[in-house]
């Protein structure tokens, strides 16, 4: 039986087909991700190229309103960029940072959790103490502080240049403890099982047992929290950018677009804030809904009676 057949008859697919909300959010998410990947092909304007937009077009309202221009379907932002194209590029940045940050978080968290759970003893209590301490401070505060410090250390210009990798590091570092705890808990459950003992008896090295045998069995909960973590990372990025600690307005993410639009909301240009805001909420909502569904399906302890 190959992998595809196994997938076709799996419980995962079975419950997916029976959950209209999961199907809906999965399709919306796929469409958004595809749009992000194909952004340079799909968007009518390249918003990173200053030659393609004109400040005279600034604050053009959407096409159905008075004064709208047919070449800008959702209007333009404060710099005269086509809002739709800018939003798609912004979502792309948000998605990139979200996924990158979650990869970093899970990398740190899995390593800490695996070592802590497998070796136990002093190392375990030391690592878990650190995890507990960071866990007790809200991740958003950690992220805001770290980005503020980075901004001071690098200077505003360098920070804007390096914003994407820096934000991945900031959000990654501020949010790993949940992975460490989850992985440690599952490693503790797996460590004393018979297959681990059997592997030890036939003389496989500790490292190999840890990474080839124990680790794959702890990945289900990691997958479950990862979906929710992507949503949280995108939210943190938006919050940081909104505070002016994230993406610069020349390469806006959704958060920095909302920030720039907010300054113009009193003059009636609501669309610069509204459309990116709606896109952000939809994006986060579908990921959260998918995450909820995944948790219900993959976590047999939570079966609803």
């Amino acid at each position: 039986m190959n992998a595809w057949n196994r997938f076709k008859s799996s419980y995962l697919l079975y419950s997916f087909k029976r959950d209209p909300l999961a199907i809906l959010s999965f399709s919306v998410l796929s469409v958004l991700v595809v749009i992000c990947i194909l952004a340079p092909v799909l968007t009518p304007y390249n918003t990173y190229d200053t030659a393609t937009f004109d400040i005279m077009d600034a604050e053009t309202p959407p096409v159905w309103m008075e004064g709208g221009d047919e070449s800008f379907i959702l209007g333009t932002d404060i710099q005269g960029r086509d809002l739709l194209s800018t939003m798609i590029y912004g979502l792309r940045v948000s998605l990139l940072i979200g996924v990158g940050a979650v990869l970093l978080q899970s990398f740190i968290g899995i390593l800490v959790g695996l070592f802590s759970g497998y070796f136990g003893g002093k190392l375990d209590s030391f690592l878990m103490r650190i995890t507990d301490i960071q866990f007790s401070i809200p991740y958003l505060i950690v992220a805001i502080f770290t980005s503020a410090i980075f901004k001071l250390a690098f200077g505003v210009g360098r920070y804007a240049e390096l914003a994407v990798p820096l934000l991945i590091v900031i959000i990654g570092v501020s949010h790993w403890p949940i992975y460490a705890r989850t992985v440690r808990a599952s490693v503790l459950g797996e460590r004393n099982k018979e297959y681990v003992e059997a592997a030890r008896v036939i003389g496989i090295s500790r490292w190999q047992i840890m990474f080839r045998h124990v680790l794959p069995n702890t990945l289900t909960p990691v997958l479950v929290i990862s979906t929710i973590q992507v949503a949280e990372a995108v939210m943190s990025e938006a919050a940081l950018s909104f505070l002016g600690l994230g993406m610069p307005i020349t390469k806006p993410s959704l958060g920095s677009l909302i920030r720039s639009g907010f300054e113009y909301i009193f003059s009636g240009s609501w669309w610069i804030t509204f459309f990116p805001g709606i896109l952000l909420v939809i994006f986060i909502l579908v990921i959260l809904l998918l995450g909820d569904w995944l948790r219900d399906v993959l976590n047999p302890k939570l079966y609803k009676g």
Partner: protein
Amino acid sequence: MFAFIVRRIIQAIFVMLIISLVGFIIQHSIGDPVRDLVGERVTPAEREVIRDQLGLNDPFYTQYFRFVKKACRGDLGLSFFYKKPALEVIVSKAPATIELVIVTALILIVVSIPAGIYAAIYPKSWFSRIVMAASTVGVAIPVFLTAIALIYLFAVELNWLPSYGRGETVNLWGWESGFFTWDGLKHLILPSASLASIMLPLFIRLVRAEMMEVLETEYIKFAWAKGLHRERVWFVHAFKNTLLPVITVFGVQLGILFAFTILTETVFNWHGMGFMFLEAVERSDTSLLVAYLVVVGVIFVVVNTVVDIVYGFVNPMVRIAGTK
């Protein structure tokens, strides 16, 4: 119990030492106390003399030790921009933030407990369904969007409520309060409503889940069997036991609310601690930044420790589990 309290306090001190170490490293590597003191127009030779006088050429651990000693006496350095002790600046901004958090906490209690109880008692009613659906969507809406939406609706379109600043305040023994003027209260509504909107979904769900769990227990069945009044079973017998976990979570979340004040204060131009922090970042005011870090650290550690100790009193499982 005594051992448990001691252990928690030692842990709290340990955390504070780590936070102060982080703060010190930031100040040590980014900040420039000489510039904070004399500005930019001093020759390098004179700078070196001042550095020596300030003890900035001492070894790292001596300087750190001095930093902790001064911090314990409440001296967190001088703010470059305000030309005042950093702690004084923070204390002068604190009332705005504290009042915002108090009103937010009141809104949370007044809205989430009745809504959560109702949703638990009548899970199938249309009102409960709307509340639950709204709380699912609510989790996905960032606080600054809620705030902007509220501003657009109530300040720009309807022009009912002011959208920025604290309005008229009254000075009570050095505490700038917005509680005692109509204007001040009106200015509080939008910021606290948007701040409350982050926590509301969580709290409604929590109250509902706890209440539903309690309603399934044996002693509630016994209370029904005794033929007690519905209100008595719900509000006296069941509600009392849902309160314990709710209070614990509330204590911890109160600390998180302080974190989110940075976002709301930016949107509403609310001159509290969070707003001051972002200004400090813009102005590269390192000592103020570090002072804020230490103060927020103290707030967190104290809140967490107190909640843990109180919980240890109420729930013996916590203090025994920690002992091994």
